[in-house]
């Protein structure tokens, strides 16, 4: 039986208070890290655990940390990406609202590992409750000596600041987030240099997602072998799945990495509403290419989903039933990317504008011969030609819709109406 660890505290009354967190064993991993391990040991431990970044890209966390230069004449920074903007994703919000100390402990251990004394948590501005809870938790942790100078009698000093975002999906892209933190418009930077070498204020910087950071105390407490023993060897660990859309029990589920998508939806999220059938599932937020019903036996991990042409992304699982028009879903997704395009590069800014126009006219029953070819051409013009992954995500998702549900698009054009209205 799988024992949830990341959500252990989330449903406990007053789980957000330090007394509750300590009573459940909280901050003992930090104490263990500072007393028993060197920073290098922690990096090696996390490498051995095979923890991969939960923000979407799945990059090995220990390896990311090891890119930070050991000696630097500038301060090092830890940034926590809590800008959670990928539609269908709400896991980081729930962690911050209900168990903010878990994140603070994860940040403290991670900062110790990379040699950072300052961290910024970039939280999207809409998450007012999460921001308040996090600020309260930081004050509590400072008062108890888990943050501040000479933490728990060690020579490790560490402070955490909350930085509120102001509504821009692009801030989830790590270099755009850094520009935003520096007080600029959020636009992605050219890489290299990578943030580990020259990130925030041109200093060595590690950016990790909330869920990635909250895995760290558990790895320290229970060991790399425990973590690697959950789910697939190459992308292991406990995982948070956000399930929404046409299911009877939408919600946040903690289950092993690699669980079959069908099992997640049918056994845990209650399956589709009575009398409906699943048509398709978006497995990892709207950037992740849609999977038709017959593909639902895929495992929910980075490698298995990549092998079927989709991605785990943020594990925002959106279930779509058989009453739904896939052209409408595709249109809404592209409208989102068009709205959130930062405007820096032409294929994304102009390409998505064009795609939205074509999709809207198809959905309205005003599609023309040649529109399908035009959409294919636009995907080709965007994919691989943009500055960051926003345009790629939009094009990949649209391509999957055009491939798996081509009949629906063609029916709209031929019948000159939406068959689902």
């Amino acid at each position, binding site marked *: 039986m799988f024992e949830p660890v990341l959500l252990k505290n989330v449903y406990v009354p007053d789980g957000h208070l330090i007394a509750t967190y300590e009573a459940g064993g909280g901050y003992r991993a930090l104490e263990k890290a500072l007393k028993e391990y060197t920073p290098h040991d922690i990096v090696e431990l996390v490498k051995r655990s095979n923890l991969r970044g939960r923000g979407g890209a799945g990059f090995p966390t220990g390896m990311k940390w090891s890119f930070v230069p050991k000696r630097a004449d500038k301060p090092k920074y830890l940034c926590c990406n809590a800008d959670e903007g990928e*539609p269908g994703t709400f896991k980081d919000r729930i962690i911050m609202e209900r168990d903010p100390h878990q994140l603070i402990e994860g940040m403290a251990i991670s900062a110790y590992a990379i040699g950072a004394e300052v961290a910024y948590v970039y939280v999207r501005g809409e998450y007012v409750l999460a921001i308040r809870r996090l600020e309260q938790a930081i004050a509590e942790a400072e008062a108890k000596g888990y943050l501040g100078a000479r933490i728990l009698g060690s020579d490790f000093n560490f402070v955490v600041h909350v930085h509120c975002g102001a*509504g821009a999906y692009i801030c989830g892209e790590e270099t755009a987030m850094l520009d935003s933190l520096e007080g600029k418009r959020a636009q992605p930077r050219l890489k290299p240099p990578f943030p580990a070498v020259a990130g925030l204020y041109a200093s060595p910087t590690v950016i990790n997602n909330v869920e990635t950071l909250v895995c760290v105390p558990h790895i320290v407490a229970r060991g790399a072998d425990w973590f690697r023993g959950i789910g697939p060897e190459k992308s292991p660990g406990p995982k948070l799945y956000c399930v929404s859309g046409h299911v009877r029990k939408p919600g946040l589920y903690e289950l092993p990495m690699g669980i079959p998508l069908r099992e997640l939806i049918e056994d845990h999220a209650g399956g589709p509403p009575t009398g409906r059938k699943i048509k398709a599932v978006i497995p990892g937020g709207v950037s992740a290419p849609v999977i038709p019903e017959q593909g639902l036996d895929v495992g929910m991990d980075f490698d298995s989903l990549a092998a079927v042409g989709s991605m785990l992304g943020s594990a*925002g699982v959106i279930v*779509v039933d058989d009453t739904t028009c896939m052209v409408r*879903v595709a249109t809404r997704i592209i409208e989102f990317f068009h*709205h959130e395009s930062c405007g820096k590069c032409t294929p994304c800014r102009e390409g998505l504008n064009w795609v939205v126009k074509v999709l809207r006219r198809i959905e309205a029953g005003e599609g023309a011969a040649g529109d399908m070819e035009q959409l294919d051409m636009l995907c080709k013009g965007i994919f691989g030609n943009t500055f960051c992954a926003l345009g790629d995500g939009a094009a990949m998702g649209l391509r999957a819709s055009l491939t798996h549900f081509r009949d629906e698009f063609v029916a709209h054009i031929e019948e000159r109406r939406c068959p689902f209205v």
Partner: protein
Amino acid sequence: MTMREKIEQAAARYPDRRSAIMPALLIAQRQHGHLPGPVLEEVAEILGVERIWVYELATFYTLFHTEPVGKFHLQLCDNVSCMLRRSEDLLRHLEDVLGIEKGGTTADGLFTLSTVECLGACEMAPVMQVGDDYHGNLDIARIDALLARLRATVPHSIGADLAAAEPPGE
């Protein structure tokens, strides 16, 4: 604390005062309701940064409003997870009962109605943010009750007629 003191407190968290523009704008907007030109200039003056740096952030990020918004800003999510749970029915209902279109503000200045991108609360879709608070698992009855509750919080000087005409809140 004055706005200037709050902004100075925020600026102390960063090695570079330019980083404090975003928090300063959030502080200023909380104080003034929106961010007209003179407020942007005041923020630039307090932080000692270029005015253009302040303007460009105020116009880039969607949570900043350079034009006034109603006392209650109804921000209904219509991204995919909410759309699948019929957020468009709620939008139509809100437009009908408030007598405004999406993007508009009621004549009494109480309500501004907007649709927004994913609020990150899809487990309780359809969801709407009003001020600092999220309201989830919405249907038409819950929307009506919420509007009545919001109106009931307003003193008699504004919106009194509307509040009196509504059924009592939950």
